[in-house]
């Protein structure tokens, strides 16, 4: 009896563990703890619309102007996905380089969105850069998220 039960649930367990191991491997390969994200704001239109799925890569040490880094400040609930418009290496603090970002759909740069007193993002606060994307699919996830909140 028990053997039959195990025999039946084994494929499901196998699938779940394969997914978990695949997820852990992808985290290692991309060097990001969140390597897939859904775009939830319109600030990068028309490149990235709300509901697009973006894939991140964090093995490139230096961020260049023109890249799309995902910036996540400590204590913030959500990250920002904007374009790096300035990169400076000569800084007083211990971080490697400082980055200024701006959304393609915003008139001004992002300093108003940074924590008080900060004019730049440090490389350590960049969780990865956008390297690939699939349009529209994220709408499903956003819908499920809003449904769960309700």
């Amino acid at each position: 009896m028990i053997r039959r039960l195990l025999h039946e649930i084994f494929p499901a367990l196998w699938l779940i563990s394969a997914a978990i191991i695949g997820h852990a491997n992808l985290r290692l390969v991309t060097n990001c703890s969140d390597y897939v994200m859904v775009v939830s704001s319109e600030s990068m239109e028309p490149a990235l619309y709300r509901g697009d799925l973006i894939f991140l890569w964090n093995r490139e040490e230096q961020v260049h102007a023109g890249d799309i880094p995902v910036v996540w400040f400590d204590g913030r609930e959500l990250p920002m996905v904007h374009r790096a418009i300035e990169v400076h290496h000569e800084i007083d603090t211990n971080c490697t380089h400082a980055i200024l970002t701006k959304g393609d759909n915003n008139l001004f740069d992002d300093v108003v969105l940074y924590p008080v007193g900060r004019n730049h993002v440090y490389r350590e606060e960049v969780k990865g850069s956008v390297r690939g994307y699939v349009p529209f699919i994220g709408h499903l996830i956003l819908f499920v998220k809003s449904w769960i909140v309700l």
Partner: protein
Amino acid sequence: MHSALVRVQNVFGFFTTVAFTVATLIALSTFINPQAPSASIKLRNVQVVRGRPHYYSYKKEEYAHIKFDLDTDLFELFNWNTKQVFLYIKAVYPATKPGLPPSEAIIWDAILPASSAPWHQNHYIHPSPKKSSSAKKTKKAAKQAAESPYPRGILHLENQRPKYQITDISGKLQNRTDVQLELGWNVQPWVGALVWTNWREYGVWQGLKGGKSETFEFPAIGAGKKLDTEKGKEGHRLMAGGEVPVGGDKKG
């Protein structure tokens, strides 16, 4: 085995598999499209001024206003999987301390849409060549002004004002040497990998020819004449459902 639910599951599973395969093929097809981009950038004028260039500048700092000429032929960057090309020019200048990588600051950018992309207010509209600016205010002339006079990816800009006035994190920019203007692009596909400027050859993709200006220096601080910047067409959005800037809701 033949219940409605099972049938729906099978159809949905098949749809997902097909969609995934088609998306992968489209994404990979980008890399077999031959391209040979070329561009030339020339510096027209550079001024360094001391003032408050940003809305958040609480103290005076040195900022640079750089005007340039740009000629590009990026027509081949647009293949069937291209949604838009984000084109930008960045000023690259070395650090004062040896051993550090150079600083980069974007002075101008443009969003070039593919013909298959839906209209967006941020799309770049190439200014009309000066010869035809005889101000005929007919409907046809207005319509022509709304469309680029050149094919997509081909730009001819003269004495172009920058969109952004750049500062250094140290607040000092004057008398920096070995500054260079560099063209860059970010091709946004319909699906798949985003690609940036390739300077080297990869298979059928030729590297960018030209695309860098001669080196120049930031002059000493001057009085600053005609420092208008090119106004971008970007809207202003706060992140929907997300962060509000510290200090409350700010709009515009």
